[in-house]
């Protein structure tokens, strides 16, 4: 599907959608959003790009295989889960910084947990879709 309009549009849509996905991730704790939806939106951004420019080109932008996002995401989530153990608290206890950080807002261990979910979702969706798309 070669369409000049779509190709031009995705050039701007990709960063905007990615930004939006991060926005969803960060606001998730207080407003509708969260890592899961954020991850799906980010995947849609890449899928859209692949429709316009071909999956090979999207893979080039990604540089690394989406599969490699799985261990990274799982590791971040696991770290967020196990971090309280080091402070002698039961696992999954939410740990929060006292003061909010500009732009990002409150930072706590559950934000990192959500970040892990976000990365795993992107990794899973893109791995499945791109593997099928590139298979011939």
């Amino acid at each position, binding site marked *: 599907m070669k369409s000049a309009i779509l190709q031009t549009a995705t050039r701007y849509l990709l960063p905007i959608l990615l930004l939006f996905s991060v926005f*969803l991730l960060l606001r*998730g*704790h*207080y*407003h*509708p*959003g*969260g*890592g*899961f*939806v954020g991850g*799906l*939106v980010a*995947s*849609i951004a890449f*899928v859209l790009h692949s429709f316009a420019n071909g999956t090979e080109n999207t893979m080039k932008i990604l540089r690394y295989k989406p*599969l490699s996002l*799985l261990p990274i*995401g*799982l590791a971040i*989530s*696991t770290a967020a*889960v196990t971090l309280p153990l080091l402070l*002698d608290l*039961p*696992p*999954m206890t*939410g740990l*929060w910084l006292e003061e909010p950080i500009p732009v990002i807002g*409150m930072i*706590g261990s*559950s934000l990192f*947990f*959500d970040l*892990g*979910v976000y990365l*795993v*979702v992107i*990794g*899973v*969706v893109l*791995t*499945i*879709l791109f*593997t*099928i*798309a590139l*298979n011939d």
Partner: protein
Amino acid sequence: MLFTVLTGLITSSLLVPFGKIIKTKWSILLPFIPVILFLFYLWHVPVVANGTTITQHLSWVPSLGVNFDFRLDGLSLLFALLITGIGTAIFFYGRSYLKGHIYFDRFFGYLLLFMSAMLGVVLANNILTLFVFWELTSISSFFLIGFNNDSKASRNSALTALSITGIGGFFLLAGLVLAGNIADTFIISEMFAQHDKITNHSLYPLVIGLIFIGAFTKSAQFPFHFWLPGAMKAPTPVSAYLHSATMVKAGIYLLARLTPALGNTELWNTTLMVVGGFTMIFAAIHSLFRTDLKGILAYSTVSALGILTFLLGLGTTDALIAMSVFILVHALYKATLFMVTGIIDHQTHTRDVTKLQGLRKVMMPVFIAALLAALSSAGLPLTYGFIGKDLIYEATLNLKENWAIWLTALAVLTNIGLVTAGFRAGITPFTGKLPEGYQDVKMPYRAMWVPPMILAVLGIVFGLFPGVVGDYFNYQTANAIAGTDTDMHLKLWHGFNTVLTLSVATLAAGAALYFAHNPTEEKLLSLARFDVVSSQHIFRQIGRSIEKGAGWYTNTIHNGYLRSYHLKIILFAELLLGYKLWLSGPIQIDYANLTPLSWYEVGIVAILIGALYIIVTTKSRLTSVVSTSVIGYCICLLFVFYSAPDLAMTQFTIDTLTTVLFVLVLYKLPPFINFVRQGILIRDAIVALGFGIIISLIALRVLYEPNTTAISDFYGENAYLLAKGKNVVNVILVDFRGMDTMFETVVLSIAALGVYSLIKLRLKSSEKE
């Protein structure tokens, strides 16, 4: 104490990256791990001998009651000393035994893992922690039995052992959880106080039945005994360590540990006495017919384990004292005999007792160690074995029951068998004339014969000073099993009495049997006729039937057609839900309470139905996929109307991606041709309609149910207080039910890996089977 458990685990994992260096240059470091641990526990002996117990607590999963609770009392300490002490001997011995083996590092990795797990079992004060370590011993044992992984027999034996102990572990877990729930605590030392509550509970027979299965499978009691002789396929250091001195005694340990909490009832004592009694005589007779040295030792080990179970079943103070001594006695002489067998096997490459003779001429020190162990096993006066056997006879003779005399006779017969077996394994290979071809047999390395020598000498030294040894090592053990003070004092000499007469008679009869009866291949073969009724045969048959049943089930239910799976899943759900719906009675709809219908809802439903119509009638796959996504978006809109933005967003993105996925897959498929017959279409329509109707009815039913909002209220109130979040949905996902999310991400990752590997895997035609 935690560090002693972790040391082995950590070094075991360190062997993965550093195995090569350890194997070639630094292998001398390995035996010092058990040495350090042994010294650590030896240092605790005086403290524990005073009756002090040492405890340590570390939270692990407190919400499930699973914690690292460790407790060191007399019973734990005796086992910890055996594990680390015999471990030391085995590590030095094994280092020479396996010198130059390609899997040298792997072997010690498993062995360290096992040592840690076993320490965990005997130190754990929480039954769930104990269970985790228990399973770990089964797993490490599996790898060690199957160590010679290029031999089919060895792999089979490993699998048999794992299946038997694994099934036992499964029952054990059920029993432990039940016991813990009845006692309302998973802490073992706290369960002791709940003894009456547990034993009077209506589920008590089930609880101990399940725990018995676990303990009997692990400790090779009849009818689960056969995995132990099979496990002799393992390298001999493993047999000496796991399958005689430590792991097989884990079952005995568990029973002894739980005796103050669950024991002292008629059911408990009778079962243990019958099973133990039968096992000890059955295995003692079997051991007489083996021609393989390790076979003899394996069956005599089973018999010794039977004696321990039997003593536990007697349950009297005398019996528990005898048990605490016999554990030590047996570990000392049996480990020695196994190591000696290993030396013989290593130097002459045979273990056939009918061929081995006169080896004392080439390896005198080994003969001395073997002789001392054989004498201790025979219970010759002045050995520790003599004390052990005396105590056993005392325990049976002092019973108040009038059938005590029969139990004594049983114990005597078993011991006669054990005397003969000990002589056969420890003396036969060394006496007589050295056969042709064995003149060149070399002395083993010093590291191989010194450890068994030390253990054998200890068996004698302990026998000379039973008072001291008993006070330090066995007194608190017996107390821990009995739960009270046993007032135990061992003496070298009891005077001329019935017990001594029986001891001497046993020795004489055993020696006579040794000279009168020679095991031969023919006798062993004639015994094989009874294999049809052996429990091993029966278990194998059961295993085969399960395999067949599973094959039949898989072929009929899992036929590989996606449509057939869908049909079955939906039909099953319909039946289950329909039945529940029918049970719950008629449905009444209160129209007054329903929200009024608005025009946009009607509009969405109209679109929904239109899309449905297109899906059913269209001839193009693509059209039907797009129509499906129309339905998804409609539902998404409904979520928006009813103010569930999180759901709406997720549904929207998921639907988009699903459509993309469908298109990608459909693109690769051949063009659509309709093969479906009319009848099948009607069947599918009925199933689909039925499902829709049932779900609608359930939705109406839910409205009719009294509204319970306790859970959502809790989340609503606490989301900000406990988790500092204002979006309740997100807080539930990342905090309250975060573990679920965690595992869901793992499942998703596995699914992605599955798709990736299924598509990317390109087998060469030679690799396809």
